[in-house]
């Protein structure tokens, strides 16, 4: 029998939902265990083995002083490193602290901030080490996750579709929530992968898979504003689980400026 692929799964600041997406593979999990050695998966196995690893999946963002060192150590032991989920690829929901006053945040949550180690920012893994592939989503899609592992097993190039959620809606004949219901939706800007879940449930996409490759963000926000939505209403869609993905961060900031300008002109 050929040697098994040595897989490591590591966690930084996160909710564990992306790792759980792997445990959610249920039946495939047992099959996978035949081909893959879970060399480091502390949430599933007490057997922890040191590197080197053939494939490492990283969940979570860099947010404490210790993380800075830890991620370098992991990279040195890893052949192929794939980041999984919005936390690891864009800093995640916890990156909402990035623009805020960190000391104030600390004091709000902890009576003794001095006991707690935390960086002022939450940043994606790729800001710190080289990353071979980024898998998007909050959480990642189980099918895409299995595909990445299978690609590595079969020495295939990693790739996932990079069109928009909006196109998936059209392919699935889902009635457009923006046109039919006047609900603001980031589907046209957001990378596919979820199967257009939110529009299926009659709500707008809030961008949990992050911006797709080619986006006409300004075109969409202009249209939504002409359609009667305020900047204030759109800000939380962009400044959400992918708030620090560059395209969303830029648009969020722009909408905030517009919103405060609108506020002033009303006074």
């Amino acid at each position, binding site marked *: 029998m050929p040697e098994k692929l040595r897989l490591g799964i590591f966690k930084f600041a996160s909710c564990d939902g992306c790792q759980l997406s792997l445990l959610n593979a249920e039946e495939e999990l047992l099959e996978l265990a035949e081909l893959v050695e879970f060399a480091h998966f502390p949430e599933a196995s007490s057997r922890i083995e040191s590197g080197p690893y053939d494939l490492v999946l990283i969940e979570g963002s860099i947010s404490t002083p210790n993380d800075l060192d830890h991620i370098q150590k992991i990279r040195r032991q890893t052949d192929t490193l794939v980041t999984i989920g919005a936390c690891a690829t864009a800093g995640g929901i*916890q990156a*909402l602290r990035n623009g805020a006053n960190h000391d104030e945040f600390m004091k709000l949550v*902890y009576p003794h901030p001095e006991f707690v180690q935390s960086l002022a920012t939450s940043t994606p893994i790729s800001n710190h080490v080289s990353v071979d592939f980024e898998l998007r989503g909050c959480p990642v899609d189980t099918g895409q996750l299995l595909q990445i592992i299978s690609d590595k097993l079969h020495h295939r190039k990693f790739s996932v579709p990079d069109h928009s959620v909006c196109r998936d809606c059209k392919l699935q004949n889902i009635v457009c929530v923006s046109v039919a219901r006047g609900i603001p939706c980031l589907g046209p800007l957001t990378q596919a992968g979820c199967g257009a879940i939110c529009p299926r*449930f*009659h709500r707008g996409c809030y961008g949990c898979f992050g911006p797709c490759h080619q986006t006409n963000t300004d075109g969409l926000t202009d249209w939504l504003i002409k359609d009667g939505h305020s900047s204030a209403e759109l800000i939380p869609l962009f400044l959400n689980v992918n708030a620090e993905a560059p395209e969303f961060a830029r648009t969020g900031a722009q909408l905030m400026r517009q919103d405060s300008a609108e506020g002033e002109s009303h006074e």
Partner: protein
Amino acid sequence: MSESRTIRVGALTRVEGEGALHVSLNNNVIDRVELNIYEPPRFFEAFLRGRPLEDVPDLTARICGICPVAYQMSSACAIEAALEIEIPNEIHQLRKLLYCGEWIESHCLHMHLLQAPDFFGYSSGLELGKHFPDEVKRGLRLKKIGNQILEVLGGRSVHPVNVCIGGFYRTPVPDELQNLIPELEWGLQAAIETTHWISGFDFPDFVRDYDLISISNSSDYPWFGVTMASSKGESFDVKEYEQVICEYQVPHSTALQAQKIESRTSCLFGPLARINHSRDNFHPNARKLADRVNTQWPCNNPFQSILARGLEVVHAFEEALEICRNYQRPSESRIPYQPRAGVGMAATEAPRGTLFHHYEIDDAGLIQHATIIPPTSQNQKQIENDLRDYLPPLLSMEDDQVAQACERLIRSYDPCISCATHFLKLSIERVE
């Protein structure tokens, strides 16, 4: 002469979160037991300020990928309390169904992949599966049915997208729930078999004197409710939660701990608390099974919480079946409301125990203040106390065996990952 030695041993694994256990001994007598939880701070209560109230269920879900529905439910109920919205029973039933999905998924994950391996000395559920293939496959299929409920009602199992303030974005058409029934029927029988299997495990004899706290209702087994019951005190209204239980910080952990304010004592939340208070409210199959499994009621052995989880899964299947069989699509998927200033509190029963939320909202519907008290931080002090009494007879063993035994005990509480923790190391400091 005093000699101090710190020994680092193996990993505290199969617990969702990261942490360490530090034990210090003075002449072989336990001096301190500290459960170090160093989950990086993520500042939810801080960044929620200023967000529109509609965002809160989706944002707080990201606290924990294993129990996102609990966060969606506690936050929605608390905000609805602030807005004084009454949720009609038909929508409430759907929320209960969603919660059934989460309990089934989370409990079956914990029972089969995390805790059961400990009873046989295996390192993982996958290894357990080599020796008990039928039981583990059955467990994974049960877990999958939990996920299917979440997918039908919420689009996906981790961070489902359908819960909103006032109800749901879209209610399912009757066929969607009808189609679940065959799997639920299979699941009910399978869950009964699983619980029998677990009942035959060899449980360490470790009976405690717990102050058990959970929601308690006159007729419903608790997912939702407004009255908190304590096995060593008065029951209290959820609005008084923060007058009875407070969080405080210890230097060795980033997760806050909790205790009763007046007595400064620890309490235990979760399946043992619920089952001891409310097993009379179980559906018939779960009720009957509770009398037949291998335990004494009230059950105060933390290792047997796996049995309580098994019984709760049986109950959840019965509940889910009842809801699906009686389902008629509500005329409205959600109750409309106008934002207004208010204060709201709510607790619901996450798989691991009571999850309390408190929000203050301004008249534009923006969050002014948020307090979230998750189950793991509330159990942490109790876990430390239990370890303190569990450790003495183990101390003659090698350090790695001590570590294993402690991990086993800690895993039995199903400490939620990211509400709080990651376990990495046990260190024993011996001063002689």
